[in-house]
């Protein structure tokens, strides 16, 4: 792998982590959705660059799927849901943004340490790529944990999946079946989420999980 290729993928993967941080920083839903779109765009670019450097044409497809579905369709759909439900207010965060960012830093550090440690024998690129991917996954998880709002949790989950795709794309020659299945499952996942949000809206006035949680099978 040429230095240029390496640096570019490095840059893109790092950019994805940066956008993840930006998502954690956002405390308004609309802005969050926009940032997520950016996240998907960066992912798409990263995957496309991988397709180019590995000369794996099938990855372009993955990049395209990421661009179309995650950068355009999903944010749009979510935006509609948000508008329909009238959730324009700020996203309730459990802990302050600063603290969350700090935790995010820690997670990134952890993932780098773990990955570099573990993949000492693998190629430099695979190491970095996996480290960044793991960071994105963990940041996505962090977002799910620190947000009270269902939409932003879904977004967090999506960004988590983006990290997975980044990892999969970075793995040299990983068979197409995986990409397709990933895309496929995200599609299904999204549909199901849509159905669920739809149903939940039927029954509840809000998508806030907090309201949902008060209905516990066992509470009297």
């Amino acid at each position, binding site marked *: 792998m040429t230095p240029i290729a390496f640096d570019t993928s490095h840059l893109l993967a790092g950019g994805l982590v940066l956008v993840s941080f930006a998502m954690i920083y956002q405390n308004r839903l609309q802005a969050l959705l926009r940032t997520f779109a950016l996240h998907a765009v960066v992912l798409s670019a990263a995957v496309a660059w991988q397709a180019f450097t590995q000369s794996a044409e099938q990855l372009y497809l993955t990049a395209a799927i990421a661009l179309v579905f995650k950068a355009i369709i999903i944010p749009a759909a979510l935006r509609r849901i948000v508008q329909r439900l009238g959730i324009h207010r700020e996203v309730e965060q*459990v802990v302050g943004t600063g603290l969350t960012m700090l935790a995010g830093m820690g997670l990134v550090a952890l993932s780098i340490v773990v990955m570099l440690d573990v993949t000492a024998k693998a190629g430099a690129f695979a190491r970095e790529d996996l480290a960044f991917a793991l960071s994105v996954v963990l940041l996505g998880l962090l977002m799910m944990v620190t947000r009270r709002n269902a939409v932003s949790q879904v977004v967090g989950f999506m960004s988590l999946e983006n990290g997975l795709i980044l990892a999969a794309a970075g793995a040299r020659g990983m068979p197409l079946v995986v990409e397709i299945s990933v895309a496929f499952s995200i599609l299904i996942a999204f549909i199901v989420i849509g159905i669920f949000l739809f149903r939940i809206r039927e029954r509840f006035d809000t998508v806030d999980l907090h309201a949902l*949680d008060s209905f516990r099978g066992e509470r009297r």
Partner: protein
Amino acid sequence: MIDVAAGAALFCLLLSALAVARRGRASLSATLYTLTILPCLAQAAAGLAILGGAAGGQMVLPIGLPWLGAHLRLDALSAFFLVIIGTGGAAISLFAVGYGRHEEEPGRVLPFYPAFLGAMTLVVLADDAFTFLVAWEVMSLLSWALVMAHHRRDEVRSAGYLYLLMAALGTMALIVAFGLLAGADGSFAFSEIRAASRPVGVTALAAGLVLIGAGSKAGIAPLHLWLPEAHPAAPSHVSALMSGVMTKVAVYAVLRVVFDLLGPLPWWASPALILLGAGTAVLGIFNAAMADDMKKILAYSTIENIGVIFAALGLAQAFLAEGMRAAAALALSAALFHAFNHMAFKSLLFMGAGAVLTATGRRDLDGLGGLIRRMPVTAFLTLVAVTAISALPPLNGFASEWMVFQSLLASPRLPHLGLEMVIPAAGGLLALAAALAAAAFVRFYGVAFLGRARSDAAARALEVDRAMLAGMGVLAALCVLVGLVPALVLDRLSPVVTALTGTHLPVQGDQPWLTLVPVAAARSTYNPLLVFAFIAVTASLAAWGAVRMGSRVVRRGPAWDCGYPEPSVTTQYGAGSLAQPLRRVLGPVLLQSREEVEMPAPGDMAPARHRVVQGDPIRDTLYLPVVRAVLWAATLIDRLQFLTIRRYLAMVMATLVSLLLVLSLWG
């Protein structure tokens, strides 16, 4: 012979299947119990034959642990316990032919009863750990099902709960013990365990675990708490089987594993066993002397007798550890003999209680009385059992208790100070237990059968039917016969004792007049036959002489009662008042009992009250804290059921991050 015994067990299981298939038929009960007598007799006969010198044998069935199969083996030890199970089972089944007719829930008793007997047989036949444990736990399970027969009563359900929980604890201890003995590659066959050599610590630990496992079934304190609840809760013939026979199977487990498989324990293990046994005996019998429920008294008394047996087993271990084989043989013979005797009189007593229950519908002492006139045969048979269990000569209970004392007296040659301190104390405790037993059974018999009837039900009681009386009669005859010629029984024990200690008592049957000479004639002898003859002759002579030389006039009249006869039956001493002196003396120590007097102020019309408050130190200090801790912890972590999804996700994340941290630090 093994095929006879295994066949008997199988036959029992088939009978249970029959009971399920023909459930609901009115004739089932009598038929089933009658049929159950057959395998019992068969296995008693097989056991006797082996004790008489016939060959045992073994077999391997293609069931159980897949790579091992179910090993069965019949040796002298198994044979002895087969005799116990068979004899007890036969007499109790005979009793049940009549008793079963009064059962309110036959559908919950009949299917389990024969299988319970079969499971006990399998326990003593099993020759590998897995088969043993399966039979053991099936035995627990079936007896639990029988205990739950009258499940609509709350106290029955809670008794059943406690019982099965303790049984599970015991089985778990046994499983762990066998895990320890079998090793990592799973040598579960008894022959392999017996052949293996292991460090002393492992031996002692395994013995301790077996003691927990078998002791919880036998009712060794402090694992006895379930016994006085569960044994009485079952239908009476089942109570008889549980108390009289199943506790012996637990004794068998200790003998098989600790004596046979493990070999001699280190000497320091035996004082604990001796003290545990003796302490259990006192605790059990004191509770019996305080209880108000006929069957509960009997259950507590079972705890006492088990304590005596375990104390004797502990003595045997102490002797074995020092290589004093003859003394060990004496102690072991005493334990086995007492086990057999306890089977006889305890089953008989439970049957007596069952007969009373049938006739009056009550088992609380304060609702009974005067039954000796309404139910003369039952009263007489019960009197035999009461005399036997109170260790009075010339019946069998005394013979075995006497042997236990003799083995205690053989002990001063033991070289360890610890043992020397413990054995006299144990002797004192056992003597106390024996004396308390007499007190408890005076109260038991006196309140239930003597005096005036305390309830209408007792006043109208009618003698029970012949099958029940026959079942009781068999065991009463056994108590008397064994009591009169213990020498013959002890000779039958010698193959068992030889197998476990390497030697046996001197042959008793050759002694003149069938005298019992456990060690030497100069040391101690006892001849119940002569004692009985002397008493019979002198009593008859005295009676004859008194009538002959004195007056023979008898006049009936109202009771004298020191000039203050009071017609009300409540003036006679009842269960509570009879217990009072002993409770005052020992109650504050053993039961935390105290008497509270509530005296209203002068002018206040409220009645004064006198109450007895008593607790159970073992329950309060050992069991309740565990229960409380579990419930507290359950309540504490129950909050985790009601978290938000976000928090659950946080849990997942925390797990992931901490594992990654571990990995990075480690790697």
